[in-house]
């Protein structure tokens, strides 16, 4: 019962983030799988995608209905990110991810500060 409640809660919070910010679902759910449920890394990522995809489709439908989609922009991004996703998956075991995470963390903090002061 406790586990079911945990699953329902993590799903709900992931959904809220996905709809509210259009991003960030994986940032909650992957650590939950790895650290709380003890699922191996690659299975945690794969399972996260299988969950985030239906949530993203629903959020996308609402964004489309509200005219918040710029199709040419989205197509360009999709083209780049599909190719990038493939490159990223190939690089996964060739680059020290630990260092990359730290660099990425710093970039996120700088971007956040920049948005606040703009």
């Amino acid at each position, binding site marked *: 019962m406790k586990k079911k409640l945990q699953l329902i809660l993590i799903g709900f919070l992931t959904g809220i983030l996905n709809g509210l910010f259009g991003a960030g679902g994986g940032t909650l759910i992957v650590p939950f799988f790895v650290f709380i449920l003890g699922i191996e890394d690659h299975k945690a990522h794969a399972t996260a995608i299988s969950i985030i995809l239906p949530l993203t489709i629903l959020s996308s439908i609402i964004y489309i209905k509200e005219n918040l989609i710029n199709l040419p922009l989205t197509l360009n991004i999709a083209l780049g990110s599909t190719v990038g996703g493939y490159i990223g998956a190939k690089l996964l075991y060739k680059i020290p991810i630990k260092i990359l995470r730290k660099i990425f963390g710093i*970039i996120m903090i700088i971007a956040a500060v920049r948005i606040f002061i703009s």
Partner: protein
Amino acid sequence: MKNIIIGLLSGIISGMGIGGGTLLIPLLTIFQGIEQHVAQGANLLSFVPTAFIALIYHIKNKNIKTDIILYIIISGLIGSFIGSFISVLINSTLLKKMFAAFLLLMGIYELLSKEKK
């Protein structure tokens, strides 16, 4: 062309299992002057084809823990519905600041995160 490169960069990060959207959205709003909601929408919709391709691969390799996903997806869909509507109701400036707060928390988390032993 700039947008394809931005997509490529965030796709690479995403493919490595670090949230691509958290990079894509600030790149679009800060450097391309795209409105916050539209940047979020672009991230959402562009994730769909990439995720489909990844999912086919993961289903083939039996990487998905199917025993736990049902509860998460059902509550997640309810959350997505509520989250999307809140997002639509909030004005762009406030949403941008809220996103920045989320970004700051995520950045701190990435800096402090430990690898699983």
